[in-house]
């Protein structure tokens, strides 16, 4: 509560303060609305601020961060920002779709941006982005298959639902393309909020011989990472850079680059080519996903595997490799172990 009042107070104060001067200098003004977890989450919100900072450096854009504390406060927070002359209001997360759509209808001249949501256009004055998490999963699957010593890798999903299958299919595809002989275990802990379950599921996979496990399971992932620490194997983080959670035991993280996405939105305003209603896809080629590299996983991945990343990027860009999106698959292909999913084409075949 306090946080939201402070956030709003700050936003109003800044908006009033900037209101006169900013218009005079014709500076770009951006409002960023955080998701529930707010700043300091070492995840999406912090990453998006990085995008803001970059825009500030490149275009001299002023940005204000507004932190609503609950989903129920999203709409009022966006509406308040909409009345204050920002050039664009940028938010993230699925929970913000409805509130932003409502406000966008009421303020047809205000430009909005929403990162990392679904493929549906959100309105004539809203640009939204879809993160191709399946391409990011493909990339970490490739890295895992090239790094495993046991020839077995694992996947721990939260719930057994289509959106999580999308990660798995990408991961599986990448792993099999890197090494057709690699064995990929698929498992779902059934929960996004139980680290203890995540740990037990991962230990079960490790007992089956898997030495790299990809966690796509919300806070259950903490258990996957802890299991890696306990057994000195590897985990792969998801969404944001989770390498810091167990230095040396997190091989990498499949990072959604919400910073790039937010930055590009501001850039479109600066360049004057903002197209409302557009849905932009951010995959490996667009730097919308990446395998996180930092001081915590330095040296864990071989140099030649790292060099593959650029090669894969190129091949995806030219369409030589098409990573399947689970939602586009035929019903028969969605099942594991059935052709053609069981034997995805190798890179050589694709040529």
């Amino acid at each position, binding site marked *: 509560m306090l946080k939201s009042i402070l956030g709003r107070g700050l936003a109003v104060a800044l908006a009033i303060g900037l209101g006169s001067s900013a218009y005079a200098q014709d500076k770009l003004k951006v409002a960023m609305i955080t998701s529930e977890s707010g700043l300091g989450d*070492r995840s999406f919100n912090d990453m998006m601020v990085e995008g803001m900072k970059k825009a500030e450096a490149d275009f001299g854009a002023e940005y204000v961060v507004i932190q609503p504390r609950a989903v129920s406060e999203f709409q009022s927070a966006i509406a308040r920002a909409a009345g204050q002359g920002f050039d664009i209001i940028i938010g993230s997360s699925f929970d913000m779709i409805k509130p932003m759509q409502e406000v966008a209808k009421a303020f047809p001249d205000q430009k909005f941006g929403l990162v990392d949501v679904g493929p549906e256009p959100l309105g004539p004055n809203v640009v939204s982005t879809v993160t191709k998490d399946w391409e990011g999963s493909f990339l970490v699957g490739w890295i895992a298959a090239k790094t495993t010593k046991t020839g077995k890798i694992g996947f721990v999903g939260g719930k057994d639902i289509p959106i999580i299958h999308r990660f798995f299919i990408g991961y599986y595809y990448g792993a099999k393309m890197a090494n057709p002989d690699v064995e990929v275990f*698929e*498992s*779902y802990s059934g929960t996004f*909020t139980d*680290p*203890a379950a995540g740990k037990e599921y991962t230990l079960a996979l490790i007992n*089956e011989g898997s030495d790299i496990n990809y966690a796509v399971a919300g806070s259950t992932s*903490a258990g996957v990472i802890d299991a890696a620490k306990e057994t000195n194997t590897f985990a792969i983080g998801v969404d944001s850079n989770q390498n810091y959670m167990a230095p040396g035991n997190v091989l990498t993280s499949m990072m959604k680059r919400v910073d790039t996405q937010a930055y590009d939105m501001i850039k479109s305003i600066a360049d004057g080519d903002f197209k409302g209603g557009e849905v932009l896809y951010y995959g490996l080629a667009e730097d919308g996903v990446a395998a996180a590299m930092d001081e915590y996983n330095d040296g864990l991945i071989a140099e030649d595997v790292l060099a593959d990343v650029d090669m894969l990027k190129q091949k995806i860009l030219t369409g030589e490799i098409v990573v399947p999106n689970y939602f586009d698959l035929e019903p028969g292909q969605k099942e594991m172990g059935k052709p053609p999913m069981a034997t995805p084409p190798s890179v050589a075949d694709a040529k």
Partner: protein
Amino acid sequence: MAVTDTAPVTTADIELARRRQKKVNGVILLGLAVFVAVAFGATSEGNAVFRLTLPRDAISIPNLVVPAAPYAYIVAGLLAFFGIRQFMRGGGRSTNVFLGIGLLLVVTAFLTWATAGKSFSLTGMLESTMVRAVPIALGGLAGVLSERVAVVNIAIEGMLLAGAFAGALIGSVLGGFVGILGAVAIGGLFGFILAALVVTHRVDQIIAGVAINLFVLGLTSYVSSQVLTKYTWLNNAPVFRPIDIPLLSDLPVIGPVLFRQNLFVYGALIMVLVATYYLFHTRSGLRARAVGEHPEAADTLGIDVYRTRYINVTIAGMVAGFGGAWFTLGSVGRFDEGMTGGRGYIGLAAMIFGRWHPVGALMAALVFGFADSLQQKLAILHTPIPSEFLAMAPYIATIVLVAGLIGRARPPAADGQPYIKE
């Protein structure tokens, strides 16, 4: 607990019920035999390979290879034999034994069917059975300790959650061992509060327990979402890693399952032994049980009923608090809202299934732990059963065991009744 009928019954009633039960059991076993033959025997091919050696083991022993289809037919044959035997001259003490063995056989046949043509680590599964059983066993033990003095303890779930929370918070700031002490203290505090409510103020025991559960759930969720998400260093406790017991931990199968575990597993096993000794071999244990069976008589003999109940329920809370710390300090070192996920209630079921005996509660907890880890294994094996159904396994086990198998378990006679001193 309203699980058993305590109303007086006549001998004729019992005889009639026994004869009917005999037929029902026979039919159940025959039905299972047909089911195993059709569902598992006819559909499986190849061998099921159960690996007994873990990647970290010092001594490796050969895999257990079971031909799937023949095994299913053997199990079906045994079940049919049990069923017919039950039909002819069943009843009596052996009934539950045969039903129990029958169910166990069905489970092994199911596992063999699911594994046919593949392999999986049986030792790994037993290891995780042990780990998953810990909070349930400690919850059940807390239930035993308080119900033995006739205080129904629905609040175990809340005590586990409070212990988990205190363990994470205090452990993050002051280290793991202080975290455990904090969890035990908080659990004991809630035990004391429960005792104060139901012993001194004679609040309905179920309502008091539910109130504690809701209070703890609300409080921990609030603090965790308002404070812990903001100051993550408050939710980053050290984890107790497995400790290898020299020599014993090198034994195949038994080593990893029993002697390569963390402090909480050893602690739970020791507590069960100590509680058994306390309840059945010490004077104060005898007094505690007397208070649970017949408080008036105990009072007449000079036992302070209130004091005994306060002490035992507080100890029960401390045990549950220790069990709660397993979720954070024994696992990942961080607290998440509602992370106990109903294990406290399953602990109560374990207590009933274990017939209000510490060792029984531990055995029952192992059954639930097994169901839990079975679910993980099946998820990896890609059985055609949807994972949501697999996730129900522990709860189905609860229902089957509590409703079907335990038969006439008798709770302490005064269970759930407040005592009013004349």
